[in-house]
């Protein structure tokens, strides 16, 4: 039986990569004595699927994990058992049983909202306006990036940004941006932040992914 877990990742856990997080969850299931279903064969693996990997240093209020468990189990019971054994900065928000009609993870994870906070000297309303204008008024935002074959390619970030707003709150610039979450066009908020920070080099930043939105790409 398959279940969908929604969890929050924050504080010390933002320094844990997606790969290490898989180990954290597998061990949590064993501690909770919630029996995982494994693939057959010589090298059995638990059947687990995660939402698109979150970049390092990004906190998230909504991440997903689909997992196959042995037999049918009560959602509330799974929730209680797993919650009790997770590290303190990994918080389970819900457990939901899946059936054939449930949408797969990639089919509904389209856009995500992020809050990007820039901290530093002289971050005025004018700077916020300038950043917002730069992103919204550019027809393309080109960056150089190494691909998996280590070749340098040019990538346009603009179509991957659905919305973008920057304002000053308590001397910090708070950016709310909605970025693509689709597998092949995923935009890392770290990449966007680094591009923006070329305009405010002295600032440092904190990023939180707040919510995943159902929708379609334009």
């Amino acid at each position: 039986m398959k279940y969908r877990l929604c969890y929050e990742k924050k504080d010390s856990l933002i320094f844990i990569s997606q790969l290490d997080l898989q180990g954290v969850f597998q061990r949590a299931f064993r501690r909770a004595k919630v029996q995982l279903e494994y693939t057959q064969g010589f090298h059995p693996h638990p059947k687990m699927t995660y939402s698109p990997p979150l970049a390092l240093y990004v906190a998230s209020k909504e991440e997903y994990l689909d997992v196959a468990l042995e037999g049918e189990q009560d959602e509330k019971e799974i929730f209680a058992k797993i919650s009790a054994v997770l590290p303190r900065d990994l918080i389970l928000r819900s457990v939901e049983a899946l059936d054939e009609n449930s949408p797969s993870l990639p089919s509904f994870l389209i856009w995500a909202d992020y809050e990007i906070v820039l901290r530093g000297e002289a971050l005025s309303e004018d700077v916020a306006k300038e950043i917002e204008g730069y992103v919204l008024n550019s027809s393309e935002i080109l960056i150089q990036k190494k691909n998996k074959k280590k070749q340098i390619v040019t990538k346009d970030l603009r179509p991957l940004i659905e919305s973008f707003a920057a304002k000053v709150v308590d001397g910090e610039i708070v950016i709310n941006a909605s970025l693509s979450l689709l597998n092949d066009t995923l935009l890392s908020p770290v990449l966007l932040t680094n591009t923006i920070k070329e305009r405010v080099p002295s600032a440092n930043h904190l990023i939180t992914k707040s919510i995943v939105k159902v929708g379609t790409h334009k």
Partner: protein
Amino acid sequence: MRIFSFKTKFSDIIKLMNRINITPTQIKDTLYTQILPEVFKPARYTGGEIGSKIPKEDTEVRFAFTFPDTYEVGMSHMGLKIMYCLLNEMQGVTCERAFAPWEDMAKLMRQYNIPLYGLESFTPLINFDFVGFSIQYEMCITNVLYMLDLAGIPFRSSERNDFDYPLIIAGGPCTVNPEPFCDIFDIIIIGEGEVVTPKLIEIYKEYKGRTKEEYLKAIMNIEGVYIPSFYSVDENNSRTALVEGAPLEIKRTYIPDMNEVYYPEDTLVPFIETVHDRVMIEIMRGCPRGCRFCQAGFIYRPVRQKRLDLLKKQIDDQLTSSGYEEISLSSLSTTDYMACTDAISYIMEEYDNDKVSISLPSLRIDSFSLGLVDSIQKGRTIPLTFAPEAGSQRMRDIINKNVTEEDILSTMRQAFENGFTKIKLYFMMGLPYETDEDVLAIAELMQKIVDIYFELKLRPKDLSLSISVACFVPKPHTPFEFFAQDSKEEFDRKQRLLIENVNRKVRLTYHDSSLSVLEAAFAKGGRNLNDVIITAYEKGCYFDSWGDYYKEDMWKEAFSAHGLDFAVLAKREYDYEEVTPWDFVDIGVSKKFLVREAKKAEQQKTTKNCYEACSDCGINKDGGKCNFEI
């Protein structure tokens, strides 16, 4: 008011004051927003793992367990996991952890004025009551200074007046010769720390508010406790007590019954992969074999085995509380644990559903061991690792490695027949009485193994045969403590000789000869090395055992700055009657026995293992024999 040494610059004092005044919250905030996003593997520096403890609100005594190597190495150490849980179970005591930060982290910590802190609460180490270093190998000692430096704590015990600074303690196997680094520490624990450390803390509670000297006097007669500042030592290693009643001989402390040894119910589970990332359960302390080069084989005597029912409970506790997918049964010689097969079948049966795999370190070269590995494979291809240690039978007799060539070859044949293709063998060179023929015998033995492989009609594909040849380092409290080490030039010549003669199918790795010579100088050194270590650190030596970080020239300079040469120190021989720098440490085994074993080595005579016959090593002082029933 803290007291600074004359060398302290005014700017450093200001920095230090800032460091002490910085709050844990400020440290955490600076780490999260400024430092950690810039460093490699930031999870090394945040804590919060499963099994980590939240500091108690009513903490009376803060203890920092400090490991002078990286997070990944330190978190693989079983002693840390045991002591961490043990101390945190004590009322009013909080134990935190600190590891040596990698240099990218250290650079940013200095830039932002962040002192070294405990991972649990981000409290600066300088504000702890105890800072306890685990000295697992000689060359980690500069990392102790590196960590003290980052913590803003003066290096020498004599520079740390009263309780202004934490008490700096050392423990771990290297303390069986504590002299080369004794000036750094206020207290050195020799032997097993589980019983003595809580005693030190309890007495400390009573002495808070009094002087450091009064406290040290109160603990100086506890078994296993050594207070270096209470003695003066002359050039003949003759000792004088400077404090009335300080014992001239320090007894190693150990727990006679393995079933009485504290073992935690839960364990630390790191978020990132460490060197030994699994549940580790001790099945036995000590080793019955008595290989003459092996320090562990003497300093952990007598052999003490854990009862099977207790072992099963500990396996259950640790696997359930950690959720780990792998477990290792740890000892110096796995198959010498008498309930070894039972323990393995227990894990295989009980934890099959959870896909828990087993790893077995320290296996002997015999068909029984091979059978065990075969039984735990479960579709994985486990690399086989064995240690014949020497190539010729003559040499194996000299070192008392009771393995015959026939054992080795038949085990290898059986291994190939059973489909094992990844095989790694460990050897040493530079052993006492070694000739070039003995070195070449390693190549000959490997040739025989290669021949066996190709003789087989149904041989497994993709043979990967590798050997690691270490440079022998004579260690204190072994029968070889009296011997000189080979020179760097001899090691290099023998390494070349082997490279030219070993079959090309065999992948050969060997140790840095210069680092091994330095290691020998420290293993057998005396008090005069304290100054050398501090000079070496000031010149820029740390992480010495991390390949590229070893700076031979700087070490040479540091020795010559104090009129010494480590190549000469490593070649120092001791007569059987002569007093060594470590003779005042009574590890339990008698010097008479070590001399007897050294003489037998010369005659190429072997000694039976403890199970077969008692060799009267002296560990059982009542004259009785050890009891090996479990």
